[in-house]
């Protein structure tokens, strides 16, 4: 049948396009040897992942956290301290770190779920700052001077390399996995619950969604992903200190999502791919003469996007001619009705 074939072709085209993009990313380290450029990519991968973590809470659930650097920092600290103090394997410490952060987010943060709108944002800032201040004052956490991870031979078991290439691939894998995970959530029961809560908490309760329960889920998942990024960051930089958790870092975690389009799971990745290389280029080129120029540019882009393209780059793309062109000429996308008809008939 024609329609079936059209839909099958469309899915094949989608898969081929995704495959080509993936191949390009896999091939980059083969052709690009500059550690500086590879570092920019690693940065893109983990910052986009952190931004996806934020976006689950901010974009999908409508709870604007400005404390995600604290979750990332806690994850980094938990896994680092475990490695340094107990000598367990770093990969295990990553899991332990995620669990620890989930507990902190779900239990200590629990009373804060009653807060809505701006109050939630305020408490997330205060919570993040309180954690940072606690670490600065704690001998166990190494106070303001931070914690370093041991150096040594390259090893996959210890997740330790002199070259940036392994970090590139692990970072890429992390970003893709988290993307797939977020995409899955978006189309699941949880995703619909979170989106309903974002639009209206009373309406959510009326159809049987317990807002508090799902908000806790969102915060816990989001914090765990942030903790994973923290683990990656610590293993990559091999040194962490409380500066990691300052307010500005939480803001940096949000920017890719807002610029890319917070309503889309892809938003943080698109935003990260565009903004971070730009920011790093400016930092490398001008920071000696004009410190702060990269963040200044970041701020200008953010303001321009919010003022003129409030739905972000992807939101703008979705209603653009470019998308029409890509859908019709490259992906050969059939009409929504046709896809729906074929899917409902079970002929995928």
């Amino acid at each position, binding site marked *: 049948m024609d329609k079936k074939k059209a839909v099958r072709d469309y899915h094949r085209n989608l898969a081929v396009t995704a495959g080509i993009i993936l191949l390009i990313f896999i091939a980059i380290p083969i052709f690009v040897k500059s550690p500086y450029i590879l570092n920019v990519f690693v940065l893109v991968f983990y910052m986009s992942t952190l931004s996806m973590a934020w976006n689950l809470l901010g974009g999908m659930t409508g709870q604007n956290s400005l404390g995600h650097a604290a979750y990332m920092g806690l994850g980094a600290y938990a896994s680092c301290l475990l490695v340094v103090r107990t000598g367990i394997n770093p990969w295990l410490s990553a899991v332990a770190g995620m669990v620890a952060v989930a507990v902190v987010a779900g239990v200590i943060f629990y009373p804060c779920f009653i807060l809505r709108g701006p109050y939630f944002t305020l408490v997330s800032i205060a919570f993040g700052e309180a954690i940072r201040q606690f670490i600065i004052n704690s001998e166990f956490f190494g106070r303001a001077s931070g914690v370093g991870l041991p150096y040594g031979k390259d090893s996959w078991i210890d997740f330790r390399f002199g070259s940036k290439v392994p970090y590139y691939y692990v970072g890429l894998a992390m970003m893709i996995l988290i993307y797939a995970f977020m995409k899955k959530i978006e189309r699941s*029961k949880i995703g619909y*619950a979170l989106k309903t809560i974002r639009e209206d908490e009373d309406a959510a309760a*009326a159809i*049987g969604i*317990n807002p508090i329960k799902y908000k806790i889920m969102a915060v816990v998942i989001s914090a765990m992903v942030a903790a994973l990024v923290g683990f990656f960051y610590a293993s990559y930089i091999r040194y962490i200190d409380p500066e990691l958790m300052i307010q500005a870092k939480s803001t940096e975690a949000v920017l890719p999502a807002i610029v890319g389009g917070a309503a889309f799971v892809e938003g943080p990745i698109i935003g990260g791919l565009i903004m971070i290389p730009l920011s790093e280029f400016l930092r490398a080129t001008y920071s000696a003469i004009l410190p702060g120029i990269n963040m200044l540019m970041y701020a200008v882009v953010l303001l321009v996007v919010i003022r003129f393209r409030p739905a972000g780059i992807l939101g703008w793309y979705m209603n653009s001619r470019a998308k029409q062109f890509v859908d019709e000429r490259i992906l050969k996308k059939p009409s929504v009705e046709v896809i729906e008809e074929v899917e409902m008939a079970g002929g995928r």
Partner: protein
Amino acid sequence: MSDTPIIEVSHITKRFKGLTAVKDVSFTIKRGAITGMIGPNGAGKSTTFNMICGYYPPTEGKIFYDGKDITDKKAYDYTNMKVSRTFQIMKPLKNLSVLDNVVASAWFGHAAAKNERQAREKAMEVLQFTGLYEKRHVLSKDMGTPDQKRLEMARALATSPQLLFLDENMAGLNPAETEEAIKLIRRINESGVTIFLIEHIMQAVVSLCEEVIVLHHGEKIAVGTPDEVMNDPYVMEVYLGVKKEDADA
């Protein structure tokens, strides 16, 4: 089982900081029927409605559903008990398509969908039933009032209720749209759903309801068939501002 009323409201009172909005109101909702509640503005209709829906608890009194005490149930427990509601001020999920609005509901309630496919199938069915099928890909914020009111009902129906609460579902509609809404409500009722509604539009109440409860100043002043209630001297006084004798004279 079928003798017990589906809802029994027993002596409920609600006070807000010393202001008594609802005072010692009792009534029952008959299984399978359409029951209406009317009353002038500020009569306590919405407050009563919100208490029955678990939006907030009554200060005093009890509410029974199928003979079970549900006074302290939370709003989000209701769809699991096969009860669903709409809002007077429509609460569409603005940035989602009509289809996604209804899919979201289909994931919840006592007959919640197990997977995405089931949720979509259920949603499509409800959209066809409520006449929104053609508009399923429109963003709900881009629709007019009549369609948003319909969407309110569609979202409530997607949780497969046996009892549906409608809060002023026809306010703001013109006569033709009201007629459409009346037909839809009747069809819902004929499919086996008990309905309790608050309404300002008398035409709708008279043509739909088997029994009508009248509230005034937070108290129940009359109950009966639409005819009985409309001819009640006190109700006429409240609604028309005339005493029965004056009207006769």
